[in-house]
């Protein structure tokens, strides 16, 4: 054969041999699932609704819904302590209601909630539209996703007074969502919850941790309780609209209370214990809606949900290996206005004040920790990092001009030892993992429903002071606190407000209460003597959300 042709032949063979296999530029997905995979398998139904339920865990920590509902109030704050907890002023912004549209927690909370709503939409889309005669399982799971969407929308309404909504079956994310604001946002949400509840699973058929019809009714009660706030007019720091909301709330509270599913816990702190799931359906179960946690593996919230770490001092190891951060404590004004208010309670008897059952093992008490702190094992006096005695003081404020009694210098911020520390959800004595929390979080519980009912009885058309006093005393008796009496609507309302502070502290209800009772804007910090502007009752909308919404349809809240 001619050598030249032989070379051509080799060349052509090489070209054809290598060019043929290459062509497709379709992206291969190696480590993720596609919608077709998920919808193809009916066994994946419970997995489809797992994500929106799992998203619930993201809300109950210091930089999300819990932080905004609790650490903006007089119950809890994170003071900057010298070089600790400055973090660019984010903690102080929450407490002094001075966020901006660029504040970390304004953005973080918004993103948690919108992502969760989107996750509900994804689940709804994967379950599909309701079909006649479909399996009950489909109905229950769909309604669970729809309820969760309403729940997340409720928190958005509460914090931002706006929630977006989008067709769950569309995957075009370039268009603007519908923006719900004002009174219509409230009415639309209420209508959606009402439409969802009948399809929800009943408590008797539900598993622990699954949202039930009861939770749906409680959501309606919560919405109606705050209807004045969401739809009313602002007069002297209080929203007014009319009594209809309280009467409506009463309907759903009565449904819940008369169901017989719940009772008051005889051991207050047992509700928050490490194994509090074991209270489920036992006498005294208060859990209307709980968020289940566990410490056996990473659930995406490692180091976030820290009921202990952010509170106790670095040198307190709780008898074990805890690395604490010395952050949150209780402002003095809350203690003075609630626990130490004349006739509020008897701290020597009230089981909600202190419970030393874990003290032998951990060196701390449940409830309020103050005074000298001791090592759990050696019982030696603990010191702070400067070797001063670790004595938690009642006196703490954001800024101080007083001289530090120990150093003789005037510190602009509290010292390491200032502030009473609160423990509601204790850790395991021998932790499985110190970054995780095994305690289930009580989002809504029975005592709250009773106090809400008491409030609706007097705020609604009935003006039933006696009924309200009876409900408050029902709780106080169970908690070993002296019973109260009341002579007037305003008297009992004030006592309900105090009782909510005694019963529900650090559980994420305080902001709503303070707004409803008109105390939210008043200075919480004795040194500062300022009142926040009325728009501080609503958080700013993150700048990123506004700029990211096409067509400029999402508007910034008034004042920001």
């Amino acid at each position, binding site marked *: 054969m001619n050598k030249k042709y032989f070379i051509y032949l080799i060349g052509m063979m090489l070209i054809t041999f290598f060019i043929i296999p290459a062509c497709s530029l379709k992206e291969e997905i190696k480590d993720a699932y596609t919608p077709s995979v998920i919808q193809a398998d009916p066994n994946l139904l419970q997995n489809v609704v797992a994500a929106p339920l799992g998203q619930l865990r993201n809300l109950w920590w210091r930089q999300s819904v819990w932080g905004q509902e609790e650490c903006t109030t007089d119950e809890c704050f994170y003071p900057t302590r010298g070089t600790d907890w400055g973090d660019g002023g984010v903690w102080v912004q929450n407490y002094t209601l001075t966020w901006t549209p660029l504040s970390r927690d304004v953005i973080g909370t918004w993103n948690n909630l919108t992502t969760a709503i989107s996750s509900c939409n994804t689940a709804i889309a994967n379950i599909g539209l309701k079909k006649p005669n479909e399996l009950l399982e489909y109905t229950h799971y769909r309604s669970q996703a729809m309820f969760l969407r309403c729940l997340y929308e409720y928190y958005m309404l509460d914090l931002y007074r706006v929630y977006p909504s989008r067709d769950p079956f569309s995957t075009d994310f370039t268009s603007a969502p519908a923006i719900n604001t004002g009174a219509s946002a409230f009415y639309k949400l209420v209508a959606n919850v009402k439409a969802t509840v009948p399809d929800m699973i009943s408590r008797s058929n539900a598993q622990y941790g699954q949202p039930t019809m009861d939770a749906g009714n409680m959501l309606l009660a919560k919405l109606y309780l705050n209807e004045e706030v969401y739809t009313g007019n602002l007069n002297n720091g209080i929203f007014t609209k009319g009594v209809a909301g309280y009467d409506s709330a009463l309907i759903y509270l009565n449904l819940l209370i008369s169901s017989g599913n719940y009772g008051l816990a005889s051991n207050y702190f047992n509700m928050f214990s490490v194994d509090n799931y074991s209270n489920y359906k036992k006498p005294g179960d208060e859990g209307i809606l709980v968020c289940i946690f*566990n410490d056996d593996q990473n659930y995406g919230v490692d180091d976030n949900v820290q009921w202990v770490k952010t509170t106790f001092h670095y040198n307190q190891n709780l008898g074990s290996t805890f690395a604490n951060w010395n952050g949150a404590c209780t402002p003095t004004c809350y203690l003075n206005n609630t626990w130490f208010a004349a006739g509020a309670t008897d701290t020597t008897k009230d089981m909600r004040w202190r419970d030393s059952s874990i003290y032998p093992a951990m060196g701390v008490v449940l409830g309020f920790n103050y005074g000298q702190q001791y090592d759990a094992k050696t019982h030696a006096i603990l010191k702070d990092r*400067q070797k001063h005695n670790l004595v938690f003081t009642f006196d703490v404020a954001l800024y101080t001009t007083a001289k530090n009694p120990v*150093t003789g210098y005037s510190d602009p911020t509290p010292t390491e030892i200032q502030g009473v520390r609160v423990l509601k959800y204790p850790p395991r004595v021998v932790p499985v993992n110190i970054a995780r929390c095994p305690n289930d979080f009580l989002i809504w519980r029975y005592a709250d429903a009773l106090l809400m009912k008491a409030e609706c009885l007097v705020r609604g058309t009935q003006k039933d002071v006696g009924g309200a006093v009876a409900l408050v005393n029902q709780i106080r008796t169970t908690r070993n606190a002296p019973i109260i009496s009341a002579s007037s609507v305003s008297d009992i309302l004030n006592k309900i407000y105090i009782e909510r502070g005694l019963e529900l502290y650090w559980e994420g209800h305080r902001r709503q209460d303070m707004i409803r009772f008109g105390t939210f804007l008043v200075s919480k910090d004795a040194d500062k003597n300022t009142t926040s502007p009325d728009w501080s009752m609503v958080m700013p909308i993150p700048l990123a959300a506004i700029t990211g919404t096409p067509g400029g349809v999402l508007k910034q809240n008034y004042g920001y």
Partner: protein
Amino acid sequence: MKLKLLFTFFIVCASYILNAQQVVISGTVTDAKDGTVLPGVTVIVDKTNQGTVTDVEGKFSIKQVNPDATLVFSFLGYTTQKVTAGNKTVIDVSLQEDVMKLDEVVVTGYGTSKKKDLTGALTSVKGDDISKTGVSSPEQMLQGKVTGVLITSNNGEPGAGSQIKIRGASSIRANQDPLYVIDGILIDGQATSPANNSGNALNGAPSTSPLTGINPNDIESIDILKDASATAIYGSRGGNGVIIITTKRGKEGASEVNYSTSVSLAQLPKELKVLSGPDWVKARYDTVAKTTTNNLGANTNWQDQIFRTAVSQDQNLSLSGGTTKTSYRVSLNYNDQQGIIKTSELTRYAGNLNFSQKALNDKILFETNLHASQVIESRPPVGATGYQGDLLLNALQTNPTFPVKDSLGNPFQGNSVYTFSSNDRNPVAMLDYTSDITRTTSVLGGVSAIVNFTKDLSYKVNFGVSYTNANRFINQSQKLVYEAPTEGNGQINNKELYNYLIEHTLNYSKTFGSQSLNLLAGYSYQKYNEHNSEMTGANYPTDQILYTNVIGSGNTQANWSISSDADVSAMQSYFGRGIYNLMEKYIITATLRADGSTKFGVNKKYGYFPSFAAGWRMSEEDFIKNLNIFTNLKLRLGWGQVGNSDIGTNNSQYIYTADAGSKAIIGTGKTVISGFSVKKTPDPDITWETTTSTDVGLDFAILKGKLSGTLDLFQKTTSNLLLEVPSAPLSPTATIVRNIDSVKILNSGLELGLTGIIVSNKDFSWEISGNISFLSNKVTGLNTAVYPTGTVQGQGVTGTLVQIIANNQPINEFYGKRIDSIDKKGTIHFLKAKNKSDSLTYLGNPQPKFTYSITNNFKFKNFDLNIFFNGVYGNKIFNNTAMLLDKQNLNQSKNALSYFVNDNTNSTNATNVSNRYIEDGSYFRLSNITLGYNVNIKTNPWIKNVRIYVSGSNLFVITPYKGYDPDVSSTENYNGINSFGIDITNYPKARTYAMGLNVTF
């Protein structure tokens, strides 16, 4: 039949008769300057295919030369010489060195070009020029050497990577690293280090260089393609510039064995001045806390406890040779580098095999190259801090009155007087009880065949494979107090990267009289794969066995975790280039590449990247020649568009992941049900970033080539920038990655390189070269928000940022509070805004205004001396290390920097990110000085060359910067946005003294 035989006989006879008139010519070729013989010089008979190459002794012999023929002697780096054969039988030639090196061949991407024919901005660095000084990484070879290329070390750890910016940062979010092409195989600059998520200061340790496996001694040349007209042939991957590394191949001639060895000592150039024990006790009492507590009486210099004099060695053996048909080169490298921090060490074993074979009457050339290496790195916990601090921060901040060891001889971790919390860390305990070993195995290989269809037309197929497998073993003993909660922590992380490449190119090259044309057409397909896996165990009964050897032996599974991910992407490209050369004066180049990538959205699968360039060799024009000034003068103009496709994968897909946060827990038994979350908000329009650049360049030489230089002016605009922007509410994720048309990054600059030959004669020569590059950079068109970045670390500053991407500001401009005044009590007051809050202002640019270098080369008889200075001017550094060592530390019984303790502030100022810690990062460094001696061994028949040298690196640095070294940049990013110019306890750069020997047999 008989007739045919007869005819053949006549032909043979006739040719014999004809040949009888031709003669055999032989001779020796030497260097005109010093008379040394030159082996490997090409000798060809002009206008024929006849030719040969000089042997080891510079001798050649060529048969059958017509008397009227002309012999052409050409050799790289020398001016080509033509000699008429005449009736001579011996022709001795001495070649003049070509000072301008205009005939030098440089690598341009899918081809080569003579330097004089270049139209794009390209700088070529020869391996031999630099490997004489015993550098250990390719990046070090380039630092300061090339105009327009800013190389900033991540830190001084052995094997640490660098941030390489060619003509400025042209991306905010996508990778800013250039594309590497190693022997024709395209490698993205992806870090090969497996991640780590075990925390405790090991977290986020900086990535090591992807080039660590390459032995610098194997490098023939590094060619840096800077402007778009040069890089457009690499299309969507050329946006950050291209670095082409070509390894050495065997040359025709006798075999050659080369052995080189070097040993070096490295030290910390300076310690940071923190308080001694007694000074600390006094300062704490007097100025800060009026307290005498926490004084344990020792006087420990913790820095002395972690630093050491490091000893390193490098051994190289190579064997090369070739015939007219075959050539080969084999090399072996053993390199062991100790770091100046105890336990840090890098060991490299590298082997290299390059082989070429011509076949079928030289019509086909087969080439293979194979690089294999194993790199073993031992790394101390340096490089990230977190709240508690890394080894280095703890060496700086740990109470100097603490003893190193306790009464039992173990590292002191608290006693009855002082209880360690988990936040106190004895650096010696961190060293003794931590081990972090990474073993990286890489294989890079290619096979190619070039088929010469005709003299003008050739076809090449190139098949390349790159494979990297890195395993990282991290053990943190339960003896560390901060590991006590989990009773030790073991982690094995694996990263596997592999890609394969197939390329076909057709090349047509033809000269028509005074015109020549070169055409290239090609097709390429490349597939990248990545697989990561990670497992973590804890709660071990004992640390007597390395946890990672028995990772499943923990007491409980609560702290275990496993995970993995996989990623694949592919790119298919078509490209072409035409070069037209008229009269060796006018050169026009045009290129076009079409890139299609799986990463691009369905609506934007293919991108097209054109470029045009022109060169005018003015010195060939009579009117310039007549001036008698210029030995060389060339004007270059170039325009082109290139892309950056390093945009991540799965950006356009609606897909689910089963992540930890999507799990539901249900029932009193706490049953776990895994769930699905949408991974990313899909963007079907996602595509490459486009960089358009214009370059005007001038190459010149005057004074008979004694002064030559290159001047380039460029402007570069990146548009279609990829940003992570807020998504429309209720998208599956809060942000979406998309191209934003309006946002642009503008880079413009001027680069000047000059070389002057001061003295050049047989015994003594002196050459100075210098270069300077000016660059300005800004961002425009951000329609809405600014993008914060620049994560800082430390107690009380969690989540605080110090940099910003803002309109009309340079990328990564520092941004934060500015000190307004310090009152009598020492309280710092910051500049206030109208609403009385602290106002945030721009605080400086982390990128230098200009960078420069000066090289002096002396030769005296057999001695040579090279002195290399380099520097940068006008950049700012955020000294995060200093911020962590401010006076407030004394409150917490920690140590602080002396200059802060003695200044007029008080210790109760809260830690604030402000201009207090922003410093001038300019520096001028004696980067390297090398003195070599070539032993005269002409008498020895079998040793060709012996060279010995001593060298010192980083001998001094003049800088106002107060940290360890101004050449630092942590590799932090925030939400995917790169930061730059932040010094967070970066591993300090060493001062190195080396000596070496190089023998060629």
